[in-house]
């Protein structure tokens, strides 16, 4: 056991001292926070930031809303002095028709042209906003103009019925609705985007935690094989002790990374008032699945590393594993929306995909059936030791083999060797 710990300690210290590790651990969260912050800023800028004045042509075919529209534009410009839209109102007979306005939009004389439908007050046919849509900000213009038209039409309808302005205001008053999740004792609030991003974050955390450290395993084994230090090690240790020490040391690295990122993420969530998105039970599940997933993948990568002479050779054998590791990433959006769907359920019981799929489902749907959770843990608890045993067999034979790269068939044969 002391020997295993000595191997684990070296593996941990030497990995933690590499530049890649330091960059990965500290720069990745900083980079991700930076990107999120930047996107947030950009979004805000697109929605609320200053734009140059936009000339909007308005062709009122109904002849009912021109007054109300220019009033609405005046109010909008007063409220948004940095995003002014200057309306030019054309009367139906003097405009030279829709075609001529279309041409002016195309030539860029107007940012957009609102063609108000004849029956706009009854609202059977849509009005049209003609624009050369190229930029995302054009969407903002479209939404703003549509909102102004709606206000103008409501005003016109109210006037048509001779309703008093008080009643009009009453009608227009917004009706707020807040979504409240009652699955747990304390209400789970927080924006829907956070509800989607939490599973994504946990999935990503597990993916990077497992993949990053498993790949560390691969390079570490191949390095020892290439530098021929392996024979010195094996004269003091059994291959089993060596592999166990490596798994332990790199597992500790993985937990360190997950811990650092988890604490950062929890801090961010708390500061945004979304602390309830994370729970102790959820953390327990995460650790269970992380440890099982890590043991499975790191022992498989150790076996591949032992069987190959170079990283390049290892790529070929890694491809099927990589597909299994990245499958949950490809499916996460679907899984988040249908955490109880057949795809989600079936992937939960396939050992290589189970940890990441289950953690995604648990975050997306906290009241997931306890039976399924236990079943998936049982499947993993049975299959992971079997996979590790097979990997240890391959490791033992492969670690001293130099020269020709073994085929998948030979690897399977090694498992049966004593």
């Amino acid at each position, binding site marked *: 056991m*002391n*020997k295993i710990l*000595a*191997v684990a*300690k*070296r593996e941990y210290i*030497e990995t933690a001292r590499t530049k890649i590790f330091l960059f990965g651990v500290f720069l990745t969260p900083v980079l991700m926070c930076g990107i999120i912050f930047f996107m947030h800023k950009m979004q805000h800028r697109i929605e609320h930031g200053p734009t140059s004045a936009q000339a909007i042509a308005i062709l009122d075919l109904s002849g009912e809303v021109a007054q109300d529209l220019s009033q609405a534009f005046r109010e909008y410009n007063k409220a948004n002095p940095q995003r002014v839209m200057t309306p030019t109102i054309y009367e139906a007979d003097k405009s030279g028709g829709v075609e001529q306005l279309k041409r002016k939009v195309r030539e860029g004389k107007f940012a957009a042209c609102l063609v108000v439908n004849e029956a706009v007050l009854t609202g059977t046919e849509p009005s049209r906003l003609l624009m050369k849509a190229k930029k995302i900000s054009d969407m903002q213009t479209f939404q703003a103009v549509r909102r102004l038209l709606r206000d103008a039409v409501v005003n016109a309808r109210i006037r048509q019925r001779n309703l008093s302005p008080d009643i009009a205001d009453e009608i227009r008053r917004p009706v707020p609705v807040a979504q409240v999740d009652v699955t747990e004792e304390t209400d789970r609030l927080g924006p829907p985007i956070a509800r989607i991003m939490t599973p994504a974050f946990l999935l990503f955390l597990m993916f990077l935690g497992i993949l990053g450290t498993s790949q560390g395993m691969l390079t570490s084994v191949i390095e*020892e094989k*290439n*530098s*021929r*230090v392996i*024979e*010195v*090690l*094996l*004269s*003091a*240790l*059994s291959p089993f002790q060596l592999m166990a020490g490596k798994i332990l040391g790199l597992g500790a690295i993985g937990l360190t990374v997950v811990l650092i990122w988890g604490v950062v993420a929890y801090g961010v969530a708390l500061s945004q008032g979304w602390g309830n998105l994370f729970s102790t039970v959820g953390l327990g599940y995460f650790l269970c699945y992380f440890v099982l997933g890590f043991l499975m993948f790191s022992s498989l990568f150790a076996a591949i590393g032992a069987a190959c002479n170079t990283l390049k050779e290892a790529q070929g054998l890694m491809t099927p594993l990589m597909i299994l590791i990245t499958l949950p990433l490809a499916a996460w959006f679907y899984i988040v929306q249908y955490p109880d769907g057949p795809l989600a359920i079936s992937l939960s019981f396939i050992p290589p995909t189970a940890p990441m799929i289950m953690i995604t489902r648990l975050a997306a749907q906290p009241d997931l059936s306890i039976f399924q959770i236990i079943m998936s843990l049982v499947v993993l608890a049975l299959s992971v030791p079997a996979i590790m045993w097979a990997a240890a067999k391959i490791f033992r034979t492969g670690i*001293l083999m130099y020269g020709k790269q073994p085929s998948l068939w030979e690897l399977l044969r090694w498992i049966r060797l004593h």
Partner: protein
Amino acid sequence: MDALRLENVSKSFGATQAVDGLSVQVPAGSVYGFLGPNGAGKTTTLRMIMSIICPDSGAISLFGNSSAAAAKHRIGYMPEERGLYPKMSVRNVLRYIGAISGLSRAALDAAIDYWLQEVDLSDCADKKVEGLSRGMQQRLQFVATILKDPDLLILDEPFSGLDPINLDLLKDIVLRLRDSGKTVIFSTHVMEQAEQLCDLILLINNGAKVIDGPLEAIRAQHSSGAVIIEAEGDTAFIADLPMVGAATRQNGGMEVILRDGADSQDLLEALVARVRVRRFEVKIPCLREIFVELVRGEHE
């Protein structure tokens, strides 16, 4: 007591018979050479002794212990393919090797300081392994082997690639270890090195034993009965002496082949009676000659 005993050990890799029914006894406190051409099965045998690979059949016992793995802590092994972690410092590499060999930290640090001093690497303790010259790395590798103060040292081609100064340093340490009661087994295909160091040898070819035993006995056994003589005066009478089978003159001297059963001492007495002897040398075949003769004999 035997430090190592191999009984009828065999190992094959696929169709290749690497070691074929090999039996060896290595007495404790000796320097024992495993000799043989490249690919003779030396490294495979050493790896089996280290239980890095398992023999297909046969038994290996170390210090009377039937489980070789159980005696692992008493053996220091230097593999033929050498290497240490290039990015770690000299001291940390040795600390790691010591830790997985089961040494306590205090004993380890003392041993590291002592051995680095011995091989003249004290100044490099904090340098990275990759920053050392090739000769320095070889010396470091040797320290890594000897660090745990093993009773049995197994060195696979320990002298290959060493310059004369490092070679002497290492030979000196090996002989000192023998004198302090340790057992040293090393493999080599350079016969002169074996001649200088070994008490006993094993000669293997194609995985099987050709000959083994004390070096002196083997050489005497393969003595051709030739004597080199240089003497002042007329030496023509030598060819007619009763114990002489054949005599040929060569560069100022004479090579005499004795008859079967004849004693070189009688020849010397006969000579001293008639001429002044400048040189009298019973020709002992060098290991290289025995090796070539035996291996060639096997092929014929």
